[in-house]
């Protein structure tokens, strides 16, 4: 699609993710790459464990179908781009880059998302502590104020996308940023906490009432995972 933005940094990072080591600095992810191939990571909780904020049906479709499709497509297009490189076919490589960005981004985003959610019985919704708590208070005044700003950002996304709490790798400051479609958080910014604002993430439970989803999801946010990502 002509509107898809191609970012060199995104593609480099997505490609890097096919190596077994580099993708998850935080050390939270279960190993998701086998012999250079991306694989679907297991969830650390049951599909129904985030109810009533997110239904088991949504979680199952979202993980087993949507995320799996990103993984499969990413591997498929990674193979094609490797072939194109071997043949020194530059046109083909360029044509494949947006697909690598999209499907690789989808894989990275969802992997981080599952980790930054948790059932209330496993700490979901418990406020952040330490350095992250301090950074939030410094930048937003309070956790509630951050959530309000975050929900406004989510509601303002025009189409499919994500909102992220990110850390600027240059200044160390945290901020809220929105990303279109499956554009991943790479380059200058480090992902701390992401919320999926694609309609598939909430439609079966909330339909057009997306503001209710944005409100409810804070009850199952895993701030511990977010804390570990902050440097």
């Amino acid at each position, binding site marked *: 699609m002509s509107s898809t933005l191609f970012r060199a940094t995104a593609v480099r990072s997505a490609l890097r993710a096919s190596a077994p080591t580099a993708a998850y600095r935080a050390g939270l992810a279960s190993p998701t790459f086998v012999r250079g191939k991306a694989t679907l990571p297991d969830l650390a909780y049951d599909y129904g464990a985030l109810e009533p904020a997110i239904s088991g049906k949504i979680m199952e479709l979202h993980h087993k179908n949507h995320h799996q499709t990103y993984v499969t497509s990413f591997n498929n297009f990674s193979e094609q781009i490797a072939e194109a490189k071997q043949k020194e076919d530059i046109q083909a490589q360029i044509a494949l880059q947006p697909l690598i960005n999209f499907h690789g981004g989808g894989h990275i985003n969802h992997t981080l998302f599952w980790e930054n959610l948790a059932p209330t019985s496993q700490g979901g919704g418990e406020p952040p502590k330490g350095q992250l708590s301090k950074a939030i208070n410094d930048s937003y005044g309070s956790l509630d104020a951050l959530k309000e700003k975050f929900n406004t950002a989510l509601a303002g996304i*025009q189409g*499919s996308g994500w909102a992220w709490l990110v850390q600027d790798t240059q200044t160390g400051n945290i901020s809220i940023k929105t990303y279109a479609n499956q554009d991943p958080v790479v380059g200058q910014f480090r992902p701390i906490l992401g919320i999926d604002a694609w309609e598939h993430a909430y439609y079966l439970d909330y339909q057009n009432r997306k503001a209710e989803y944005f409100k409810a999801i804070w009850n199952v946010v895993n701030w511990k995972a977010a804390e570990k990502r902050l440097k």
Partner: protein
Amino acid sequence: MRGASRLSIALFSLLSNSFEVFASEQQPFEFGEMSAPIYTLPPLPYAYDALEPHISAQIMELHHSKHHQTYVTSLNAALKSQSEAVHTSDITSQVSLQQLIKFHAGGHINHSLFWQNLAPASSTDAESSAAPKLVKQIKSTWGNEEKFREAFKAALLGLQGSGWGWLVKVEVGQEQRLTIVTTKDQDPIVGKGEVPIFGIDMWEHAYYLQYLNGKAAYVENIWNVINWKTAEERFLGTRADAFKILKASI
């Protein structure tokens, strides 16, 4: 079909959640003093369940009475702010409102055209024989109807994120060409010399309750409810003809 009370309910729910930033900068809405036009939700040309089993009544009702209504309501609010910003020579506000207007106006334009380019599967309008001249040009462009559908399907399934696929008539000098165009989010087909013939909504809200992640099945099935009579009219007509539904909904 949808009166002022429906509009004000939708407006209230909009103000109370997703539109907070924007709304907080505004005075309460006073429609009597507005100098911008007020768009309204056009009624569907068929019942909510008329496209079953290909598109469920539940999807149609939410899609029309909630999603489309929200685009209309938000467009009116953005246009009102725009006219105030023009009035007060507030050029920075005017610029910052442009993307919001484009998004919600696009949503209103796209959905208004979409409802009209669908028809119940049992209707003769849903047969491609209702569009003899258009089909002739489709055949001369893609070889046959099947190849055209394959090309359209590939374009729709290639969208990354929310968007639309359109069959568009493009006037190139004296010639009229057909082309398949995909657009992101709610970007409308409004280029010079472009006439949208029919569009297919590829936002997840258009199919998810029925097809879940099986969007290929949605794309297959929607061919059963394309309104070829409307398509032929748009193909033979002008841009202004295609967009007359929008004038009617002011």
